């Protein structure tokens, strides 16, 4: 049984992420925000389910599609939003933007824009945990497209060789940019690639937050018990385009319609009574989530821009010519 507090947390987070991303889609259309925006509509259950199995100080890495991970990991909503708006009070002081939302103090090692950059970084954090005999869990999030990149494979091989109990979380959302997963896979199941490393792997329904939570929790225990990395593949659907503004012409309507029947938010709502939430409880959570999101966007709107010269902060090697600083 999951404790009531956790269930409330799960529901709150899953709605917060959905509302947040819907708001991002809206402002993307209005073109009021600079830069590339990658929303994670359809990934909420994976973000929340995995994070429900983690502690605040456990380590994760994310990608350019990071809003959900950041929210679920406990990053401040106001700071995330300000960052996306490019403001000085943003979570990375406006230097990162939407693609790089990260807060080390919340256990985020980073959101990397280079596909497959994360797993090896998390491997390193997990190695540190091993050497220092501390017990924090280390999780790397990446997409189905990332499994073709050498950096992923090298991290997987080392993790297995060094008996590192890290968790690889692959979000198989059906697409890598405009390329369908069923086209780019060479194996029957995506997670079959772990056979090359003799690595344990499990497949789960990425639309069902409680299934994601269960599988992740078990995997963490098993990984630590057996001192081995574990690969989790969660299947879901990328309702958003690759980025906001993507025409999505390659995503057939019938496919989208079918996926909608398993929308993680829809499933969460349907399951709510099973987890002891009555209609009122649910409504209360939904309203709170919506309110917090609205507040965060209002907050960001009022935040100051960085000064141009703020670009020079955190620079530890200076160029000797004034005009080239």
């Amino acid at each position: 049984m999951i404790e009531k507090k956790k269930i409330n947390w799960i529901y709150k987070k899953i709605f917060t992420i959905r509302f947040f991303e819907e708001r991002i889609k809206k402002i993307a259309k209005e073109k009021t925000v600079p830069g590339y925006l990658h929303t994670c509509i359809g990934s909420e259950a994976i973000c929340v389910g995995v994070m429900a199995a983690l502690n605040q100080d456990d380590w994760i890495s994310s990608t350019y599609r990071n809003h959900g991970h950041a929210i679920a990991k406990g990053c401040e909503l106001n700071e995330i939003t300000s960052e996306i708006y490019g403001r000085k009070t943003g979570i990375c002081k406006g230097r990162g933007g939407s693609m790089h939302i990260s807060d080390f103090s919340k256990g985020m090692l980073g959101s990397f824009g280079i596909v497959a950059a994360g797993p090896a970084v998390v491997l390193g954090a997990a190695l540190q945990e091993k050497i220092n005999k501390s017990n924090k869990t280390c999780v790397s999030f990446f997409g189905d497209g990332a499994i073709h990149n050498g950096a992923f494979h090298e991290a997987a091989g080392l993790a297995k060789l060094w008996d590192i109990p890290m968790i690889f979380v692959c979000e198989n959302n059906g697409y890598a940019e405009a390329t369908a997963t069923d086209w780019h896979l060479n194996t029957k199941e995506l997670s079959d690639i772990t056979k090359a490393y003799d690595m344990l792997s499990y497949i789960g329904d990425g639309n069902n937050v409680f299934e994601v939570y269960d599988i992740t929790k078990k995997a963490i225990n098993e990984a630590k018990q057996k001192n081995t990395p574990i690969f989790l593949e969660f299947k879901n659907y990328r309702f958003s385009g690759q980025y906001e503004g993507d025409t999505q012409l390659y995503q057939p309507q019938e496919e989208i319609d079918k996926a909608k029947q398993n929308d993680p938010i829809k499933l969460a709502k349907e399951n709510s009574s099973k987890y002891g939430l009555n209609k009122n409880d649910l409504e209360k959570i939904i309203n709170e989530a919506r309110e917090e999101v609205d507040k965060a966007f209002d907050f960001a709107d009022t935040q100051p821009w960085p000064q141009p010269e703020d670009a020079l902060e955190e620079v530890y090697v200076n160029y000797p010519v004034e005009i080239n600083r």
Partner: protein
Amino acid sequence: MTIKTVKDAINDALVQSFEEDKNVILMGEDIAGGKGREQYQGTQDAWGGPFGVTQGLYTKFGGERVRDTTIAEAGFFGAAIGAAMTGLRPIVELMYVDFAGVCFDQMMNQAAKVRYMFGGKQKVPMVVRTVVGAGFRAGSEHSQTLYSLYTHIPGLKVVAPYDAYDAKGLLLSSIKDDDPVIFMEHKRLYMTSCEVPDDLKPIPLGKGRIRREGSDVTIIAIQRMNLFAEEAADELKKINISCEIVDPRTYSPLDEELIFQSVKKTGKVIVVDESNPKCSLASEISSLISEKCFSDLKAAVIKITAPHTPVPFSPPMEDFYIPSTKKIIDAVKKLKDV
């Protein structure tokens, strides 16, 4: 004469090269787009790369020659080398130059060295098309230029066109070239346009261009910086300062003669480069001028570059990062007084 955008000019050069030589092929991520959804009408060729530059090629030339890849740059860059050595003329797309890191070895240690290290028996006629540049609010990992990273390597040719005319002419040459060429396209220039003759001949690599003749100060401008150089020259003309703008267009080989001639004429030089200053094209060109034209110089060469930082995301900081028209004007005025 037709007015063309840089984007369309590049597409034209690709189509023309595909038609002229059946050995030309193209590989990259979502250079067509829609792979795996062929059964749904109208979804193929949905992207043409993130900027739509290669759109239509898949439809025209088919999947055998226009190949979508997985996110495996090291793999398909390496494949391009082998294909080039054995008879094809592959063009590979590195979606953003910032991803150079994951496949740099292929260019630095294989493509660049095959001809030299194996005794001159093989050549590697391949082109890397890649997207560079800040000003897109794309953050630190999607905004770099990294010109000098490739230019530093013997065995690689480096091309960075400013306008549609040069983009087409230089890409035609790059594809015909027998050695590996890095062809850099600036994301902020794709939609800019100029006249491009339909029958434009290939422009030889290693030939720079005087974009504007002038007599007081030489501005050597790299790729998008030509825009700011021209704006600055327009402003300065109003106060009777005459600027000569030199666009080297290719950086390996570099048209040193053209640069030196202009320096001899004006004796005052500014190099404008969007990259970070350390070991940049700006510092390379500036050092060549100091060595070769010392006695012609009336003042030290001024480099206008980005600061020595990653590209920041937020607009005020990113705008500060990118060299500006104002910085060029100020520098020219400073030189004018010496």
